[in-house]
């Protein structure tokens, strides 16, 4: 059962560099429902991977499993990040190891102001962007820093969730529908930021319903359907493959 993952296993990837984030045969359950059914993929350092699929395909569940949250429960599989085995860690340990998730429903913490929400991310080392830098990226948050986080508008909350992830020093950024509820101009901004952090060597996995935008940004794409991988290749391949797009992405 416990065969070590092959860091160079990905057939579609010609690169010789070992995978930075490697997910191998992941199985996960919510209670008794079997949701993630043997997902494997590799991401290289500094790459952006788009994880796509229909509603209910299991994207969120996969990300949550990788971020080591309690639900869904991983029953089998391995997750390696930069030679650390995440699958034995709890979510807070994974975070220290360099993993960061922007959850799909934003999860702004009630009772805390915007600033406290950000400070909270900086309590445990390693710490990433400073608050000033984050406010520069999202001036809107700077203006509203004393406001209680949950009273922000939907888009502002999304900004806060992204900012909170960047406030930590990360190796891998997991984004679950980061553009949801954001005005197009802000989406542009965030894309720029993602490109920017990519240059710094941060690896990103992005789940996004706006598949075209995500694919334009991403290097590679993985398509999920009912908890299994149905495609693993470069982003360009997806954009070129009519039938694939039509079947799984409706674009």
């Amino acid at each position: 059962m416990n065969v070590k993952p092959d860091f160079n296993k990905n057939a579609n990837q010609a690169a010789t560099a070992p995978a930075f984030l490697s997910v191998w045969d992941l199985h996960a359950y919510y209670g008794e429902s079997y949701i993630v059914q043997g997902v494997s993929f590799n991401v290289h350092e500094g790459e952006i991977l788009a994880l796509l699929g229909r509603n209910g395909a299991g994207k969120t569940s996969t990300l949550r499993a990788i971020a080591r949250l309690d639900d869904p429960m991983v029953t089998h599989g391995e997750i390696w990040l930069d030679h650390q085995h995440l699958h034995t860690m709890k979510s807070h340990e994974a975070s220290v190891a360099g993993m960061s998730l922007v959850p799909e429903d934003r999860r702004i913490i009630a009772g805390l102001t915007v600033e406290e929400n950000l400070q909270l991310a900086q309590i445990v080392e390693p710490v990433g962007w400073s608050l000033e830098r984050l406010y520069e990226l999202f001036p809107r948050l700077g203006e509203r820093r004393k406001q209680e986080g949950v009273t922000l508008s939907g888009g502002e909350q999304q900004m806060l969730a992204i900012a909170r992830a960047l406030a930590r020093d990360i190796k891998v950024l997991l984004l679950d529908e980061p553009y949801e509820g954001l005005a197009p101009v802000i989406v542009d901004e965030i894309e720029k930021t993602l490109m920017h952090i990519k240059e710094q060597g941060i690896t990103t996995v992005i789940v996004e319903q706006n598949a075209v935008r995500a694919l334009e940004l991403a290097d590679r794409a993985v398509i999920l359907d009912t908890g299994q991988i149905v495609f693993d290749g470069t982003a360009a391949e997806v954009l070129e493959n009519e039938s694939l797009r039509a079947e799984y992405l409706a674009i």
Partner: protein
Amino acid sequence: MGILEVKGVNKRFGGLQALGDVNLSVQENTVHAIIGPNGAGKSTLLNCLVGKLIPDTGSVMFDGQSVLGRKPHEINQMGISRVFQTPEIFSDLTVMENVLIPCFAKRDGAFRMHAYESVASEKEVIERAEAMLEDVNMLDKRHMHSASMSRGDKRRLEMAMCLVQEPKLLLLDEPTAGMARADTNNTIDLLKEINEKRDITMAIIEHDMHVVFSLAERITVLAQGTPLVEDTPENIKGHPKVQEAYLGQAH
């Protein structure tokens, strides 16, 4: 004279003028979109319409009656239903029950002591709810626990809950956010059909321009709490100010 007349509405949150002198008129049987940057006050405006917030000044008339000072359930009984930005559903109940409740609310009013009848014997209501679920493609999930659905499904469920009431005015706050492209397209069709066939007026907030331009007959652009322009979709698309402040260069 529109079915909804908002006149001179102001709302402050501490030092922030969230809404400043908003005037809005929604004509019967049209789809009216409200767009604008994040934090522009779009959701706040809806909150003022459904009784979640009370404007500091101004008036809101629906169907010739003022909604101000009425409780949320009274406003709903007047014929306004709302889809929230983050799905508000009865998560401990099944999908079917989620849809049945608005059916009963529509049929019986705000309170009726139906303690002895059995739900199962209310054939008419059940049929209606099933038809609605059919419309949103969720009939196969009717016995599912709504908490365990993916986010996109929750969205659709909430929409079904509002549609089944056949309100006179349907308020939609980013109904397609996080919805897969295929479902988004279905939703557009569904809303269009409903608007045409059942004469439901709609006010929709959306950041997805595809949705906005496919549905809206008129668009109001809100920025910093004040309406910037109100016009037809074609004119808005080309409006330079809107492009700069909101749409970005992508459009």
